[in-house]
Each structure stands twice: as structure tokens, then as C-alpha cells.
């Protein structure tokens, strides 16, 4: 086995072009579990540790551009949390301080677990991912990138280099249920994003389908019921019905963590609660 520690993106991409089978290592919080348990035996590991640019973020017109190696701890930084409160809430629910200081947003997207906490929030935020190879750069919508459970559209010679998140002006909420509060993988989760300028409400579910599920019907149903000038919904029955409609979008399964029926129930309750907290 060989470990490559390139110190520039160009070098990293050249390595990947020469050896597309190389395993990419970011924070290692998914990767090393597989190596420790013998489920992954890479010939070549390409570590992103020295690519300082991938750990940076900046604001570009109406987007926040997050380097792929931005950690959960960074997402909790007030400067970023103010721009994307829902993403910060989700980051705070991930693992423990040790995991949050190490795990990256790019690793969460690349693992593409249906329970990945970044996925529903990024889906509700209409985020895009940027992939680079030695031959060029392409940008995909999140729904094009995550193609199935633990499957993405990344080619073996590509690196995920950034996530582009349009800034939404309005409240956001991320709610997650699991068997306990700390260190828990989501049994079900809901992200709600309100955009006062576009007068839209967007919602997505995690752990309730093979990929993050957008609740388009619930979104278009609720938008005309919002009092956009007062920035609120007066009738609590609207919150309740929104929850029901979001749960209808879920495609949950029974597995070792929970049942499909409980997941649908959780989506209904969480979506109602998230909307009530926003509007």
C-alpha cells in the first residue's frame, strides 16, 4: 500500500488520473472504520490532508462555496452558521466533538449514506457539488450527484472539491431522531428552509429513502398559505397538514435501526415541528 500526500490540487488530480483506483482519504471517519475492520484494503491512498484550499470557504455572489474538506466543527463557526443555520444544526448532531473536528462535508457526500446528516439539508438548500479531474471541472445538482444508497456520480478520476450553497434569506431548521441524543445515526430527519425573498418553503427528508427525498408537493401546497408579509403561518392546522404531506413523500424501509412505519410517523411530526419553528 502507498500513501500519497499531494500538496496541490493539480498534483492530486494528476495522481488520480494516473491511478483512478486510488482511494481518496479526507477526515477518515468513514474510511478508517472500514480499514480497521478489514472491509477496505486499498492499494493506494490519496490523502487530501495537505490541500489547504479544500478546507477553506468563501462567499461568491449569492452562494457560499464550501471546500470539500470543511469539517463539521467549521460549519459550527458563527460566520458560517449565520449563513446556513440548517447546515450548522445538522453538523451539531453529527457524532461527537472528535468526529466533528475530523469529518468533512465532502466525505459525508461521497459516502452518500441515506442517513448522512448533510444530505437532506443540502437537498433543501438546492446545493450543487463541484467535481474536478485533470481534464476539467463539472457542477452537478445534489440530486444528480447522489444516485443511490452509498452511490454517487463521481468518476474514479474525479475529486469532489466544493459544495455550492445558495444563500436563503429566512429561517432554517434541521430535526433528527435517533435512539439517543449524542453520537447517533439518524432514524429519520427533516430539513426545512424558508426563503423570504423567493417566497418558497423547501423541505427534504433523510433516512427515508435511498437518496434524500425532496417534498415538492408539500412545498408547493404550503407556499400560498404563508403570510409572507407577517412571515408566519397563523393556522396550526397548516403545520399539521404540511407534516402529513411531507411524510407522504417518504419512501422508508424496515431495517436494523427502525421500521418504515415509525420513520413515516417521525417525518410527519418532525416536519410539522420544523415548519412551526420557522413560520
Amino acid at each position, binding site marked *: 500500500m502507498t500513501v500519497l500526500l499531494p500538496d496541490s490540487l493539480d498534483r492530486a488530480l494528476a495522481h488520480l488520473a494516473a491511478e483512478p483506483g486510488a482511494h481518496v482519504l479526507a477526515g*477518515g471517519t468513514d474510511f478508517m472504520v472500514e480499514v480497521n475492520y478489514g472491509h477496505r484494503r486499498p492499494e493506494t491512498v490519496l490523502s487530501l490532508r495537505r490541500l489547504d484550499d479544500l478546507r477553506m470557504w468563501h462567499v461568491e455572489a449569492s452562494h457560499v462555496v464550501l471546500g470539500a474538506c470543511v469539517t463539521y466543527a467549521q460549519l459550527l463557526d458563527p460566520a458560517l452558521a449565520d449563513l446556513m443555520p440548517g447546515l450548522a444544526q445538522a453538523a451539531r448532531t453529527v457524532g461527537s*466533538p472528535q468526529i466533528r473536528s475530523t469529518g468533512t462535508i465532502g466525505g459525508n457526500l461521497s459516502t452518500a449514506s441515506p442517513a448522512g446528516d448533510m444530505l437532506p439539508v443540502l437537498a433543501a438548500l438546492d446545493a450543487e457539488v463541484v467535481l474536478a479531474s485533470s481534464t476539467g471541472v463539472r457542477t452537478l445538482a445534489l440530486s444528480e450527484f447522489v444516485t443511490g444508497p452509498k452511490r454517487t456520480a463521481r468518476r474514479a478520476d474525479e475529486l469532489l472539491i466544493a459544495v455550492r450553497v445558495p444563500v436563503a434569506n429566512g429561517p432554517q431548521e434541521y430535526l433528527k431522531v435517533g435512539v439517543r441524543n449524542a453520537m447517533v445515526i439518524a432514524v429519520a430527519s427533516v430539513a426545512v428552509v424558508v426563503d423570504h425573498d423567493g417566497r418558497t418553503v423547501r423541505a427534504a427528508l433523510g433516512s427515508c429513502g435511498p437518496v434524500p427525498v425532496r417534498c415538492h408537493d408539500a412545498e408547493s401546497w404550503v407556499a400560498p398559505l404563508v403570510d409572507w408579509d407577517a412571515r408566519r403561518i397563523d393556522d396550526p392546522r397548516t403545520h399539521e397538514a404540511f407534516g402529513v404531506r411531507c411524510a407522504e413523500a417518504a419512501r422508508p424501509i424496515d431495517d436494523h435501526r427502525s421500521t418504515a412505519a415509525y420513520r413515516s410517523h417521525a417525518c410527519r411530526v418532525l416536519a410539522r415541528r420544523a415548519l412551526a419553528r420557522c413560520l
Partner: protein
Amino acid sequence: MTETNPTAWPAESTYALRVNGTEHQVPDSWVGESLLHVLRERLGLYGSKNACEQGECGSCTVLVDGRPVCACLELAAGCIDADVRTVECVAAGELLHDVQAALLAEGGVQCGFCTPGFVVAISELLDRSPDPGPLEVREALSGNLCRCTGYSRIFEAVTSVVEVRRGRP
């Protein structure tokens, strides 16, 4: 691979890690080994404990470039130019660090298996935030599991360190 490129380490090679301020050669190791495995089995630093090897228990907590991390989830060969600090550098020789002494005095140590991870995590917390509130303490230590104490004596130890450092015992 026998590339002489300074950014590539071939299998079976020897590489150096900076642990507690000292350069250590890591001999004859498989480069897929975790930092925890290298600390314990290659460098003889047995303070960091191995319980789960999957980031769940925190008994292997060390600082890498100042950040608290699970050593079991770090690729050792990927830490080549990093500053690694383990529980071994907390005490000054035979003199216990105040966090260690408080854990003993308050009954926060029973079997002791989780203790090194807690010592690193508590020290890091108090360096960064000298007077944390109770919820902050709980959140900061949420990645460290203890099967013996029920945690309250560990939290009491944190409180006592804060009070002594503040100068009112």
C-alpha cells in the same frame, strides 16, 4: 511503488511521526495502520486505549494539531507532518496534571480504561474554555464513554479543576 517523490510513502517504508514533541521512527509497519495502532504497538505508548476502533468510545482520544480526535480513525502515515499529543505528555514526570489529580480525588476513575481519553478531552476543553457551563462540559465529553462511573463524578472532577484554577477551592 518506489517513487522518491517527497509526497509518497511506499509500503514497508519507515516514516517519522512527531509525538509529544519528539520525532519517532515508525519501523516496518503496514502503512494502513491507524495512529492508535502505531502509538501502542510500534511506539510503545500504551496510554491511548483501544476499545472499539470505530470512533465510538473516545478512549483513544489524542490531539492532532491541537484538535481532539480519535486516534483509531487517523491513518498514521497521513499524520507525517502533524503535531501529535497523547495522554503521556499531560503529566509533568511523576507529578500528576490537575485534571488527572481531580479525577482521582473525585472518584472519576474506577476501572480506569476510559480515563486517558477523558484526561485528553477535559484538558483540551479547559484550555479552550476555562469556565465551561454544565451543558458545554457534557457536549465536549459526549464522545467519551465510561462504563463504570455513571459520569457524575467525572463532571464533578471538571468542576473542581475549574474552581481550583479560578482560585477558590
